[in-house]
């Protein structure tokens, strides 16, 4: 059924409210959404992981290293291996179906603008963490399916993909942990925000940081919106601290999966 262009979906009026703590409880505290991660969730993939950050849910699988199939313009790239990231938003991942009229001209299966951008971000964020110099002329495929997007999808994808890489037994310098936060008016910060808790808040900036915790190296630092340099500095600091908090949880998930695998069936 085609609706007139000026119509609004019902969901616009019935803002879904989940049972999560409201934003007022979470200002300036490192109180993050419920976090769940499990590695080795897919039977067939070489490595895989599933993550939940609040209602943001996604699954990653990893294949490789194998012979390079994607074409690369720079011949130089062959001296190091490459990561090939594909991102797919499930059609039901947002309030509205993701297949919009604007995308109608695309062939089915082609990535949308958002998917391409996210894939590039994930690739940039993970490349420093993987020992790509040990696998020249090879590529590693990372597939990422977003089941539900309620904010912080880049952070979730980075953690999930790095766990999947570790689960696949690929040489890595370190895990990648990531966290996002929003700066609302009066320079207050909401850690790990969900889209619902920000719906009626005027956001002046959002920050995503990804970190290699053991080496203490930042691999992704993204900010948008407008905030003062001083606020930004604090925000990055706080986001970095949040990343570190996740470290034991991710480690535990990986250890569990290794233990399960090594146990005789």
């Amino acid at each position, binding site marked *: 059924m085609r609706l007139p*262009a*000026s*119509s*609004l979906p019902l969901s*616009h009026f019935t803002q879904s409210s989940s049972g999560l703590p409201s934003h007022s409880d979470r200002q300036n505290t490192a109180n993050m959404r419920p976090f769940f991660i499990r590695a080795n969730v897919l039977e067939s993939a070489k490595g895989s992981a599933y993550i939940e950050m609040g209602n943001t849910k996604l699954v990653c699988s990893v294949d490789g290293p194998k012979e390079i199939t994607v*074409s690369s*313009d*720079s*011949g*130089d790239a062959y001296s190091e291996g490459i990561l090939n990231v594909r991102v797919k938003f499930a059609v039901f991942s947002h309030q509205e179906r993701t297949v919009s009229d604007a995308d109608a001209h695309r062939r089915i299966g082609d990535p949308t603008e958002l998917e*391409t*951008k996210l894939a*590039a971000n994930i690739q*940039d964020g993970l*490349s*420093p*963490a993987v020992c*790509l110099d040990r696998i020249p002329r090879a590529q590693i495929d990372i597939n990422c399916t977003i089941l539900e997007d309620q904010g912080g999808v880049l952070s979730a994808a980075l953690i999930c993909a790095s766990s999947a890489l570790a689960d696949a037994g690929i040489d890595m310098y370190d895990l990648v942990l990531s966290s996002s936060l929003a700066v609302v008016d009066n320079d207050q910060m909401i850690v790990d925000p969900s889209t619902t808790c920000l719906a009626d808040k*005027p956001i*002046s*900036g959002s*920050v995503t940081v990804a*970190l*290699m915790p053991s*080496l*203490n*190296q*930042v*691999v*992704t*630092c*993204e*900010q*948008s*919106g*407008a*905030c*003062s*340099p001083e606020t*930004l*500095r604090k925000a*990055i*600091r706080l986001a*970095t601290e949040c990343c570190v908090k996740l470290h034991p949880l991710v480690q535990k998930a990986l250890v569990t999966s290794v233990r399960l695998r090594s146990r005789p069936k």
Partner: protein
Amino acid sequence: MEVHLSDAERVFIVHGVQEGIRNDGRGASDYRPIRVETGVLSTTLGSARVRLASTDVLVGVKAEIDEIDCKQTEKKGRIRFFVDCSANATPLFAGKGGEEMAEFVSTALTDAYSNSMALDLSKLVVSTTKAWTVFVDVVVLECGGNLTDAAALGAKAALADARLANVRIKASDSEKSEIELTDDAYFDSWQLDVTAAPLLVTVNKIGWSNVVDASLQEEVCTKSALVVGVASSPAKGDLVTLVRQTGRGSLEPDSVDEMIALGVRAGNSLNRELDRILVDIGRTQMNRNELVSAAGFLSS
């Protein structure tokens, strides 16, 4: 032809940056000479050409009247950025390389402008259902390093140059409404306020030093870089409107802070210089119009 460097050349560049003297004699926070021209394209509402050493970009601004997205809570117009890295700029851009670069620069610009401070988009509203959509098209004529910064300079200069016509919408009985224009569109027009529009500064990490405005050779030696969007609004002072890390390297948390600080300082200098130039250009608007109408502007 791709930029190749031998190990020794690479070492020479890295050591030089660390010593505080780059291969062309600049210090870490020095820009190469920049030339800004505005009003260079007659088919646009506003245009600019920026030359940064051998990097050369041409920016045109156009606008269309569009339906306002009814899902938006507040009524405002839109601004969209498109970048075209043709193979003219460098043979590197032939094929996929150009697309990736173009994609990167256009999303960086879009994200840097996507805040309420950069431009007052509510001024673009024409009627209850209609608003201007502003298109900023960047064409890269030549690439000699640091494309992102040059593109942002061009975008801001072109937006400052743009004149939008004053229009009135006459509501008629049916769904269709009529757009009314005055006879002399040039004098009955208004300009966007770009005082708080952001510029982008790419801060490159070379060795243990931070460097702005890297040349092509220096870009090859860069493992990691931060693109920092810097605006200064009269009300709120310095604002950072974008931070984006690029490259295959990683950074220490402290050096992220340093790089952002350097980016803000460089961005402020750029903003001040651009404002000065735009005022200069505005002052000599009349005689310049004659100059520009002469053919062959690309040759200069």
